[in-house]
């Protein structure tokens, strides 16, 4: 145990995801030794993120205004929505520069063990967006784990009757990898999702 203030800092850092007690201690001592200007930039950033960042009223992504950058961008395809679990998934997909539609962030996935049901996710908001008929395709990009799959199934069952095309991201072999290093589940999925080769 350290002097009160230092220990407080270590405890607070230790509550962050992915930071164990050892890392928390390391970060704390790094901050103690750091230039005061650097530390105040960090505290400023922390304060700002809580004060300024809001969630987009349309898609639920992080935003600095009423709406996020993607929803404000008129060049984006208004007919396609990609559904993801978290704002960080939006960033991941944006990096591909492949997708030109808009997003919908659910804020998690259905998981009864953690007490998360459909009513705890931004599904009502999604249904409102789908109601006016401009959307023709819904891409389900929830995580490829059990909870993500269950959430995708739930949404597909809800949306299909509305006559909107529902697609799911493919899962399978990583690009540039060797077949022999793929685990059985991934390889099995890749077999299930195999497609005709156009030549």
């Amino acid at each position, binding site marked *: 145990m350290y002097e009160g203030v230092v220990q407080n800092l270590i405890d607070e850092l230790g509550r962050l995801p992915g930071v164990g007690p050892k890392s928390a201690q390391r970060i704390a001592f790094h901050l103690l030794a750091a230039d005061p200007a650097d530390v105040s930039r960090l505290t400023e950033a922390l304060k700002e993120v809580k004060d300024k960042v809001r969630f987009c009223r349309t898609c639920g992504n992080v935003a600095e205004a009423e709406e996020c950058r993607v929803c404000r961008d008129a060049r984006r395809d208004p007919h396609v929505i990609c559904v993801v679990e978290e704002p960080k998934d939006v960033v991941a997909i944006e990096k591909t520069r492949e997708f030109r539609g808009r997003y919908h962030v659910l804020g998690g996935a259905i998981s*009864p063990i953690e007490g998360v049901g*459909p*009513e705890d996710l931004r599904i009502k908001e999604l249904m409102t967006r789908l109601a006016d008929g401009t959307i023709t395709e819904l891409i389900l990009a929830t995580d490829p784990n*059990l909870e993500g799959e*269950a959430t995708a199934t*739930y949404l597909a069952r809800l949306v299909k009757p509305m006559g909107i095309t529902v697609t799911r991201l493919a899962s399978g072999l990583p690009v540039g990898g060797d077949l022999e290093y793929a685990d059985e589940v991934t390889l099995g999925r890749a077999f299930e999702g195999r497609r005709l080769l156009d030549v």
Partner: protein
Amino acid sequence: MPHAGRSARREGPTLESVHVALLELQDFRSYRAAEITFDPGISVLRGRNGEGKTNLAEAIGYLAAQNSHRVATDAPLVRHGAARAILRGGVVRADRRALLEIEINPGKANRARLNRSPLPRARELLGILRTVLFAPEDLALVKGDPGERRRFLDELLTARAPRFAGVRADYDRVLKQRNALLKSAAAHRRPPGAEMLATLEVWDTHLAKAGAELLAARLDLTAALRPLAAKAYAAVAQPGGDAPDAADAVDAVETVETVDGASPGTDGTGATGPWIADLTYRSSLEGVELSTDRGKLADALREGMERARRQELDRGVSLVGPHRDELSLTLAGLPTRGYASQGESWSFALALRLAAFELLRADGDDPVLILDDVFAELDAGRRRRLAGLVAPAEQVIITAAVPDDVPVELSGAAYDVAGGAVTRVR
């Protein structure tokens, strides 16, 4: 050279010999550090109760299957006061040596290395060494609740095809989620809303998909085990007659089947002696024709869940699926539970293990047999017949508190286990 004689006798060209040549333990159970070398053939580990013989049997079993035959969690496997246990096994397969290493971290993922290179998942070590372990706990296979028999089937599935470890884990995960949902619905004590039912249907779909895969595999496995178990039971239990070699037993069954097209125990052609043992897979889907077509099974499971909807919502648990199934055992048509004597129950338990051994051997390599203190539980006749059945295996590792309990047919290398050390004496 008893070993060479054994191999020459029954080897098909495809049977690969596999044996454990080295076992190293670090902070495993009562052992701070121990190293034992084994030869193919028979090894007998002798020592008083509580000296740690079973710990060695358990260690070899863990290297093969990554679970213990004694405990469900890993914490007791680590020596008191140590943070982790390490097991190393030198496995010789067709003259090639592999070094398997597992670091057991209770509460965290185990780490594994193969020939000194780390593996991304400990599960990838499964299948390199295969063992069939006989232990006093096996009596529960016959006398215990259905969970024991389901575990027997699932462990054998994993030994045959390691990917079933994943199938089983997926199923358990879906089941947990679905039960959590049912439980929260039951707790509200009011009719579930449309949203709740829609969510439940999603879990139905996923449980049915994962369940169908497990169910289909278990049905296939039961069909394959049935003739082998019947034959093994007859060989262990039949009084008087000299025990046929288990390998011959398989041939005999195949002959029977080509003659009259039925498996023993059900053909009704005079085969009704008290040693007629049979297995039937009983699914929680009552009155449904079970094929091994996964799509059809998934549909049947989903329909089963719909039928049980009200009950499931009342009780807050999943009532349909492979987690509720039973492998029912009968002797001459009567269920073993409640009817079989202690001796018959033991014979059946041994028959199930022997059938597993034959089945794994039919896949192309010889599993290592581990007999943990079983002879003490058996009468003289069963001891002798069991000895005759297991002696031809590539490697048999036996533990015994009373060396005289081990039949003479199984004399081989001998080790003394005492005070946390293992010494080879013969």
